[in-house]
């Protein structure tokens, strides 16, 4: 890329990195996000820090053992329509055969994949994607811009039903009324379509341009949304045994609920694959079965490990633990109705909670103590505020001030899995009792909880890992958005959030985030006990596996020592 083509902000990033105002990871993240190729970005980091990260990766690739079979314990789901996947597990299976346009790594840095580099316009509304020219489909045909255009149009077609529609709606789609009438509401049904006929534009055989209707910083990250696998258009959105792909393996056997088998393909354009064969084996839902299977060498790696068996697994000598800090959490969120309509009551719950104890007791200390503002230390724009220490006397005083000198009775709803959630809910309820907050715990089966999660006055809801703090705020706390389960509404918050979303400079964004976080602490819509470390175990002979914050498995990077 010539200097004049560079996004103007990249120069600023260089200066910030050199001055030590941003760290290596944030530089890589934003620089690659703005279209600097990964090699160039790593080179720049090398200049500042000495050594080359890219060279290190290349060296480890040369020493990885080759051959053998890699067996992974994971649910074997239906794989037939990748663009509508709603589980990470099915995407992991298909990821062995199909590629994405971009890849977000375990370090939350998004790098090129089928897209060799990208170039946003200065206003972040137009994104030009330059495709790799050396990619061939397994069946021989070269990979071109037509493939990408078809896939993007297919995944954004409302008839297909992909969750990508919701994700990219603000950037690519317009809502419109159809002629069909919904019998329940008597209103015309709404649907979406591309906002402009030219929204997805083929520039030439290896260049695609996205012409968006609004600025969007996170396009490269959205292109790695897990259903957005690049399929062979000739297969019409379907996937199965023998399907074509640009990825490192071919699917040769697939039985839902039992087993999937993949064979390495020759001539893969990217790293690996190192193993000859990859197998996913369905071990069911009992954590004891997962432990027995990996202990007796029936699988080499587990997709995830239940917190209840982590301690036993740590004691097994042939296993290695893999973990990564994330922004995975659950929030005890309160809707503004009695007694939570008074922010002093909500604040009292924060003061009554000892986050360090919850982290230790409910998640075995694996992770970081929570801060009640839903921006995690792994987020680049995280601003550190003084932690809210437990203070029972203060909690009681706040309750009395709010007109509840004898404490309050509330119903606290949580779900069954993952196991740490009901455990944490129980521990918090015990802690609150000392401050006079008597919470009656209702534990619902997961599917039942997901039917009422935005409706219960006081509930404990899972929030998945997201690489940016503004993403959580936009999804859960902006006035009136569908996932705003705490019914939080604050005009100043909304204004600052929009400002933060449009601020590329992380230093400046962090200053805004500090204000946003402070509003969250003052208004106290949530109690957030902990940020989870995601972890799993592998046999020690597994080489090159890195735990991903969203549990994505890139089997092409993994080797097995004999």
């Amino acid at each position, binding site marked *: 890329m010539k200097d004049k083509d560079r996004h103007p902000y990249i120069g600023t990033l260089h200066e910030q990195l050199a001055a030590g105002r941003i760290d290596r990871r944030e530089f890589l993240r934003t620089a690659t996000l703005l279209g600097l190729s990964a090699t160039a970005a790593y080179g720049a980091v090398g200049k500042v820090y000495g050594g080359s990260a890219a060279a290190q990766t290349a060296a480890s690739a040369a020493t990885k053992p080759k051959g053998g079979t890699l067996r992974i314990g994971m649910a074997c789901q239906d794989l037939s329509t990748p663009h509508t996947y709603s589980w990470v597990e099915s995407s992991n299976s298909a990821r062995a055969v199909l590629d994405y346009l971009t890849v977000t790594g375990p370090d939350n840095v998004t790098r090129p994949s089928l897209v060799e580099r990208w170039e946003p316009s200065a206003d972040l509304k137009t994104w030009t994607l330059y495709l790799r020219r050396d990619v061939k489909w397994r069946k021989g045909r070269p990979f071109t811009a037509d493939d990408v255009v078809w896939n993007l149009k297919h995944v954004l077609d409302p008839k297909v039903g992909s969750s990508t529609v919701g994700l990219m709606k603000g950037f690519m789609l317009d809502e419109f009324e159809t002629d069909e009438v919904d019998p329940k509401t008597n209103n015309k049904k709404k649907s979406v379509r591309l906002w402009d006929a030219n929204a997805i534009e083929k520039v030439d055989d290896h260049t695609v341009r996205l012409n968006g209707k609004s600025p969007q910083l996170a396009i490269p990250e959205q292109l790695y949304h897990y259903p957005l696998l690049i399929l062979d258009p000739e297969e019409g959105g379907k996937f199965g045994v023998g399907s074509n792909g640009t990825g490192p393996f071919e699917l040769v056997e697939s039985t839902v609920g*039992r087993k999937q088998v993949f064979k390495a393909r020759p001539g893969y354009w990217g790293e690996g694959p190192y193993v000859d064969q990859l197998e996913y084996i369905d071990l*069911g839902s*009992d954590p*004891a079965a997962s432990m027995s299977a990996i202990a007796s060498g029936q699988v080499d790696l587990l997709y995830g490990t239940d917190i209840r068996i982590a301690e036993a697994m740590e004691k097994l000598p042939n296993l290695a633990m893999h973990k990564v800090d994330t922004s995975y959490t659950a929030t005890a969120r309160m809707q503004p109705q009695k007694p939570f309509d008074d922010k002093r009551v909500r604040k009292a719950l924060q003061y009554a909670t000892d986050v360090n104890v919850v982290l230790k007791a409910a998640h075995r200390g694996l992770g970081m103590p929570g801060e009640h503002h839903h921006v995690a230390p792994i987020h680049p724009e995280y601003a550190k505020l003084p932690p809210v220490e437990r203070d029972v006397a203060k909690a009681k005083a706040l309750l009395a001030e709010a007109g509840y000198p004898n404490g309050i009775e509330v119903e606290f709803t949580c779900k069954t899995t993952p196991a740490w959630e009901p455990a944490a809910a129980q521990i918090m309820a015990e802690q609150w009792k000392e401050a006079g907050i008597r919470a009656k715990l209702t534990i619902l089966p997961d599917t039942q909880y997901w039917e009422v999660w935005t409706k219960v006055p006081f509930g404990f809801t*899972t929030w998945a890992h997201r690489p940016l703090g503004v993403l959580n705020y936009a999804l859960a706390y902006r006035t009136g958005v569908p996932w705003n389960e705490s019914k939080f509404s604050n005009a100043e918050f909304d204004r600052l959030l929009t400002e933060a979303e449009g601020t590329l400079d992380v230093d400046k964004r962090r200053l805004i985030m500090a204000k946003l976080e402070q509003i969250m602490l003052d208004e106290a819509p949530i109690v957030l006990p902990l940020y989870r470390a995601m972890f799993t175990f592998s046999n020690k002979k597994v080489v090159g596996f890195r735990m991903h914050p969203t549990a994505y498995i890139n089997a092409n990077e993994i080797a097995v020592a004999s």
Partner: protein
Amino acid sequence: MLRYTARQLAYMALTLIGVSFAVFVLNEYAPGDVARKLLGAYATQEQVEHLTRELGLDRPVLVRYLEYAGRLLSGDLGQSLTFKVPVAEILWDRLSNTFLLAAVAFAVIVPVAILFGVLAGVREGSLGDHLILIGANFISSLPEFATGVFLASIFAVWLGWLPGTSPMTTGGGWSVAAQLVLPVLVIALYDVGYLIAMVRVSMASVMRQPFVRTAVLKGMSRPKVILRHALRNALIAPFTAILLQVNYLVAGVVVVETVFAYPGFGRMMLQAAMAKDIAVVEAGTLVAVLIAMTTQLLGDLAYRLLDPRIRLGR
């Protein structure tokens, strides 16, 4: 006897119809939305509504039941929502795995139960009898999930002699036979204690009968008395109990199948029920009920053959 059998078969057909309707309605009112269960926590509301419409789940329950029953009568068991294959295919696959497990377990349980039951029963009140009885009570009071995890920790994790799970695939360096050992052991331990007690009681009561005393008094050797005269009579009563174990072995080993990740009928039913996969739940329930009623009928008929004094209802 023919009329008895015919009438029983008619009852069976009626029961199956009743059960199929009850399961359909119960499933309908069980909490949770089918599309939401299939799609999981991260699916958007639009995806859930999309799938609900696609599956036709927005139509009344009676309409769907009649459609289902109509297809069932033409021999079509339908399509599984969770496993994405025809129900007949998955049902037969899992059922054959469970039959294999049941057959091996049965072949272990029955001889062991008869051996120890007879040994204990012939000398009622002896030290051997007490030891066997205590042992039998002890093992049958251990829950399967506890023995399963316990045995797996010893033989798979600690000693490394056996595989810890039984996905019944040959990968991972363990033969299918080795994968059967632990599940069979757990089932046998759980089940055999009860049968030992049944055989023992029956044996003991036969040993008190006048004809046994007569045989002994006329100078017949003890082994001969037991094998020729006592054993056949002693096995009549436990025979039904033994046959009823088939029910447990086929439809009741869900815990063992889950602990050992065994791809059997019980685990399939659990998974289908959790996902409200009605076609699989229906077909599985009908099969389970059919097996239960068939063993019952066989038990009744065999009873009559074994003991001519028993008259079946006219």
